[in-house]
């Protein structure tokens, strides 16, 4: 059996990303059907192990599992033995003993998805580990951009906001770069990570200077829950300098996209009605979330695990 995981965009590389985007064209067609369901992963079990809150990621993985005819086990920390002090390792080994084929994990600590293969044979999908990575978000963003603007090669993508605490930014930078786009990060110096020199990106703290050149404005959520210190003087001042207001949106190129991974702090990183802006593809991102997660699960459990069977005949 080939060991395959999606813990980071690095696990996929350009060819893996492209394979998943191609699969997504198929699953997009499936989701338009009268019965939007295929029997591809019948008999497989997928555990959703969420140590942090989530709406769209958990729901879209659950919907994706159902549309592939897989069974899903839902594990949320509030109603589990974690409350009684069970360790991550014991929890994973317990789930694993029930016979699961894939574990989708979200955890507040970076690196947790790399620990799991020590304790389980299941394929691991990272649904967000601390401020580290969130690869399926990056995949659905690539898919959304590709569908709206064509191939990412040569596109200029600007990511704005709380880069420092953002796992979305880290995964997206890797994915966008490996598909040939160029990336500019915009943030106040306090919210810019220290090590961006080896990321292969441009950085600036002047949002207005890059709006007109961007094919995509990717607005990040202010991660108020991860900010132990005050990184900005006030949210009002942040919104004034780095928020996407309606007047800033007017200086965008007419075909450029506005994206946001959700959930939005309306009035902070984006003005309250920006989701309804004609260039906003925020709702497409959510719809593509289910499709991309079908592709990710099929990539790991369907197309991937090649075991040769002697005397097997093809048609």
């Amino acid at each position, binding site marked *: 059996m080939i060991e395959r995981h999606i813990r980071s965009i690095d696990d996929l590389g350009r060819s893996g990303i492209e394979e998943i985007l191609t699969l997504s064209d*198929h699953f997009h067609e499936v989701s338009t*059907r009268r019965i939007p369901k*295929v029997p591809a992963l019948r008999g497989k079990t997928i555990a959703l192990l969420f140590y942090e809150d989530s709406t769209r990621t958990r729901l879209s993985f659950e919907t994706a599992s159902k549309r592939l005819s897989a069974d899903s086990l839902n594990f949320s920390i509030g109603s589990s033995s974690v409350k009684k002090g069970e360790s991550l390792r014991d929890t994973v080994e317990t789930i694993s003993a029930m016979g699961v084929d894939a574990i989708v994990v979200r955890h507040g600590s970076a690196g947790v998805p790399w620990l799991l293969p020590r304790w389980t044979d299941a394929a691991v999908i990272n649904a967000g580990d601390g401020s580290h990575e969130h690869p399926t978000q990056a995949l659905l963003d690539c898919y959304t951009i590709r569908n709206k603007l064509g191939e990412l090669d040569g596109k200029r993508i600007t990511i704005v906001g709380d880069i420092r605490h953002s796992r979305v930014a880290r995964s997206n930078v890797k994915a966008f770069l490996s598909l040939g786009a160029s990336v500019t990060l915009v943030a106040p110096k306090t919210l810019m990570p220290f090590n961006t020199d080896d990321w292969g990106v441009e950085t600036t703290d002047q949002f207005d200077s890059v709006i007109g050149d961007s094919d995509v404005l990717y607005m990040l959520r202010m991660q108020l829950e991860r900010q132990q210190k005050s990184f900005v003087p006030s949210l009002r001042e942040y919104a004034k300098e780095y928020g996407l207001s309606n007047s800033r949106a007017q200086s965008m190129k007419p075909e450029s996209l506005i994206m946001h991974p959700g959930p939005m702090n309306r009035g902070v990183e984006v003005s309250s009605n920006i989701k309804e802006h004609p260039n906003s593809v925020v709702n497409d991102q959510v719809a593509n979330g289910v499709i991309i997660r079908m592709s990710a699960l099929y990539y790991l459990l*369907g197309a991937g695990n*090649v075991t040769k069977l002697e005397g097997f005949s093809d*048609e």
Partner: protein
Amino acid sequence: MADSESTSTPLNRGVFHARSEIMNADGVRRALWRMSHEILEQNRGLSGLVLVGLEVGGVHLARKLAENLLEIEDQSVPVGTLDVAFYRDDIGIRQVTPSSPTDMPFDLTSRIVVLVDDVLFTGRTIRAAMDAIVDFGRPAAIQLAVMIDRGHRELPIRPDYVGKNVPTRKDELVDVTENGVLLGVIEEEKP
């Protein structure tokens, strides 16, 4: 080259070596005309008929049959395409990679669906296709048209319209194009 069948069988990586020509371009063309007439005769016209080509090899045959039927009856037949990858019974056993997305822009309820494929072998693709078809509605009937029936069935499936019956060895490969039908083997590529 065996692009139609070899791309749909990823385990058979290698080079296709043709051993013999079973049909030439004229043979394929004549078989398609005969099958078009048989479809018309069997169904007493084109009322409610839909052609569904299976990716990859059945799609161009389905389009060709539709062209013929238009010329004979002066009536166009809807053509859909179907990729059965997600319905196969060997997912997880081998690499099952879909080719082109399914295109079925119509409801199949109460239609007569003619599945079209290039080669009928074990019958497993057709089993998968029938499962897929019923997700698009409840057809009045499903029929099967293939250019080559090469035997070795593993399921109780038989074709309604056949271009040619060809006895084969199990390890051989049949390649169907508009230019003819070749019988050969896949040989592993020397590294």
